[in-house]
């Protein structure tokens, strides 16, 4: 039997007894009405109510009739409160009794209305509490992972910490994770349903070691842990409310009602007055929700847990050149662990080389999705050799970044600029919905990672022309530098509209583009070389649409008070009037604070039998 039906049945069975208990509940209900408890922040949080977009009504985010005791409970917090009071006072026992089913509501109502409920044995609730054994709560934030579009913005979940927990026993703590219960294997359906709420979102419980394996080892995402300063009473309320939510279905939306949003709701229940949900009416980017939690003074301290790739990079950096080459050969199986080249090293250095070789092998196995058989034997040989060396590892763990992922600039941007394009002066307004562009202030962001969503510029030229200069619906770039041990591809994808210099005009063209290539570390920055292709379409083209192909190269650097990028791109068009056009550009931004930057740009564009230069500056404000 499905959940809604089951709970509906449960509610129906209750109704006669509820009616019988009304005389007792009546005075409490009247008192609740006088105090207007139904519209108290805590009650609205417990019921996951939000104000409707239109009018003054309410609606709950819960999409499961089993969560409501009143028939119209989803839309009426007062009716739900009255029904809850009546149900709590109804006779009966066992896990189905509302007192056992809704312990967080019961606790809050008792505190506010000062009434007693009989002791009831709630087996399921008792097991929930004793299993989770929560004493403190930590917010866990696996950071963005560029190669997976559905995790671009990071993810958050809660860890329930036990009393006297140490760093090592933290692995055994349980986590509360709100996620879409996806049943489609098809990526396309996955994205569509994710955006439009086609998946039920449910609260999952797993040991922390499972989550670490998933994020740190399989997906290579660095993890930030934020220990929250919730009191034991607040933790108890959170645990009980998560028990109320555990069987409840919420429609899951990637952008709005997502993992992070539901966690905010849990925290709103734990501590009345936070009003975290209210800060994210339509979109909850995990990093933003972490910012809000930090701003609400909920964080006691933080800890950094580097991903497998970060550890590997840090360890490889601690090897000498010869040791690194040896580790690489050991990984490929070109050298055996018995080889004198290894065994003549000091034991400690042998340990360092073997460990790095092993980590590199595991990274390759997971990243390249190799068959188990291809690496299991050689991985075990490396571990066996390592186990024969008594020395402890000299390798140091990577240092936590000085700026956390929640401490970077805010994701939306507003810019005011001015400049000259082809000797004509212009003023410019720019607006971006999210998230980070390569030349934005880098602290707190992954180097070489860009996600721009809904990013547009409007220009006003001195000859009284107002023009849309550019509009990116989405523009993602991933410049992942290659090293001896980690060899990812760099890529980009963009969809939007831009202006292209033609023979006697500069028409606005819709454009879909992609690039793929390699990046390398260069002078503290990242240099890249890629092959690119673009499909342009619009009335400004004689043929209606054109395909361009060509190389891209550039260098992203840090310094001179900020960061900048020098870039070159060339496109040769194949359909209609065939020609090659390109652009050489330099953009540098000086960071004037976390959320303010001044940028300068210089470019030379070669169009069809014609070229144009541009120079400009702009002030960017992040909000």
């Amino acid at each position, binding site marked *: 039997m499905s959940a809604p039906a089951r709970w509906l049945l449960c509610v129906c069975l209750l109704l006669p007894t509820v009616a019988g208990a009304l005389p007792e509940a009546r005075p409490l209900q009247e008192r609740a009405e006088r105090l207007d408890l139904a519209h108290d922040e805590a009650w609205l949080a417990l019921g996951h109510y939000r104000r409707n977009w239109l009018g003054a009504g309410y609606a709950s985010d819960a999409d499961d009739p089993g969560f409501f005791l009143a028939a119209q409970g989803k839309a009426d917090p007062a009716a739900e409160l009255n029904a809850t009071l009546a149900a709590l006072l109804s006779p009966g026992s066992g896990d189905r009794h509302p007192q056992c089913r809704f312990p967080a509501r019961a606790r809050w109502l008792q505190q506010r209305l000062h009434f007693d409920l009989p002791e009831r044995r709630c087996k399921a609730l008792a097991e929930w509490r004793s299993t989770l054994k929560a004493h403190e709560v930590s917010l866990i934030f696996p950071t963005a992972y560029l190669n997976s579009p559905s995790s671009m913005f990071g993810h958050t979940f809660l860890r329930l910490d036990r009393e006297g927990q140490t760093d090592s026993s933290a692995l055994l703590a349980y986590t509360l994770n709100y996620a879409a219960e996806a049943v489609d294997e098809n990526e396309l359906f996955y994205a569509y349903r994710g955006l439009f709420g086609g998946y039920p979102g*449910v609260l999952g419980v797993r040991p922390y070691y499972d989550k670490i394996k998933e994020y740190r080892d399989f997906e290579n995402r660095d993890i930030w842990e934020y220990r929250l300063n919730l009191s034991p009473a607040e933790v108890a309320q959170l645990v009980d409310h998560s028990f109320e939510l555990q069987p409840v279905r919420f429609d899951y939306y990637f952008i709005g009602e997502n993992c992070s949003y539901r966690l905010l709701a849990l925290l709103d229940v734990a501590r009345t007055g936070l009003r975290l949900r209210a800060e994210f009416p339509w979109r909850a980017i995990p990093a933003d929700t972490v910012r809000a939690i930090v701003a609400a003074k909920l964080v006691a301290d933080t800890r950094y847990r580097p991903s497998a790739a970060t550890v590997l990079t840090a360890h490889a950096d601690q090897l000498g050149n010869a040791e690194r080459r040896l580790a690489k050969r050991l990984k490929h199986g070109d050298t055996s662990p018995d080889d004198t080249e290894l065994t003549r090293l000091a034991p400690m250095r042998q340990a360092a080389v073997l460990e790095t070789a092993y980590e590199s092998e595991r990274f390759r196995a997971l990243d390249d999705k190799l068959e188990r058989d291809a690496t299991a034997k050689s991985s075990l040989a490396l571990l066996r050799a390592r186990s024969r060396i008594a020395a402890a590892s000299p390798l140091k763990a990577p240092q936590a970044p000085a700026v956390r992922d929640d401490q970077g600039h805010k994701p939306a941007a507003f810019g005011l600029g001015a400049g000259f394009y082809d000797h004509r002066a212009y003023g410019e307004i720019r607006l971006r919905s999210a998230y980070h562009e390569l030349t934005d202030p880098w602290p707190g962001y992954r180097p070489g990672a860009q996600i721009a969503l809904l990013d547009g510029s409007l220009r006003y030229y001195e000859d009284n022309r107002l023009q849309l200069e550019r509009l990116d619906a989405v523009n993602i770039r991933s410049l992942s530098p290659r090293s001896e041990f980690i060899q990812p591809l760099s890529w980009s994808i963009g969809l939007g509209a831009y202006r292209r210099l033609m023979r006697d005009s500069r028409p606005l063209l819709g454009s879909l583009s992609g690039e793929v290539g390699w990046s390398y570390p260069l002078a503290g920055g990242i240099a890249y070389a890629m092959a690119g292709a673009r499909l342009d379409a619009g009335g400004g083209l004689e043929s209606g649409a054109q395909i361009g192909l060509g190389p891209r190269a550039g260098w992203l650097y840090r310094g001179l008070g900020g960061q900048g990028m020098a870039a070159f791109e060339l496109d040769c068009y194949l359909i209609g009037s065939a020609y090659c056009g390109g652009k050489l550009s330099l953009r540098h931004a000086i960071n004037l604070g976390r959320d303010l930057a001044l940028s300068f740009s210089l470019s030379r564009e070669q169009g069809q039998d014609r070229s144009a230069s541009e120079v400009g500056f702009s002030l960017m404000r992040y909000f």
Partner: protein
Amino acid sequence: MQKLAFASLMLAAPLLVNAAPPQSTSNRGDGAGGCGWGSLLFDGNSGVGAHIFAMTTNGSFGNATFGMSSGTLGCDPSQPIRYKGGRVYISANMTKLAEDIARGEGETLDGLSEVMGVAAADRPAFNALAKSHFDRLYPNEAVTSDQVMDTLQALLKADPALSKYAG
């Protein structure tokens, strides 16, 4: 469809701990103790995408989660909880645990001590015992988590100082 049915089942009963879903023991290879899942060393590397998908979506409230504490994995009921917890833990952490044992230290190895109730004072000896017998614990790459646990139990029993931690 099976996943959907499983999800509904999960939704329908808030705490299915006491009514273990049928797949928990029948579909997975039972080990020597009739308990745990018998994961392979370096398991999870073929078809990682599919593996993760199954792990995050299907198992959001999997039986292993609570089985660890309440002992519903079909284990021999005469075994203490610590022992069963150790089996589930080793099964879930095969790869990382092997790495820590080879090094003789690490978070995942500490976690095993925690599950098996090894006192802080005995952990250096516990770690050293495991490290010095790496070859016995992991004789080949086809070793399963249940075999690792059986060997570990034998090693503990034979060690006068640590035999009290044997299940």
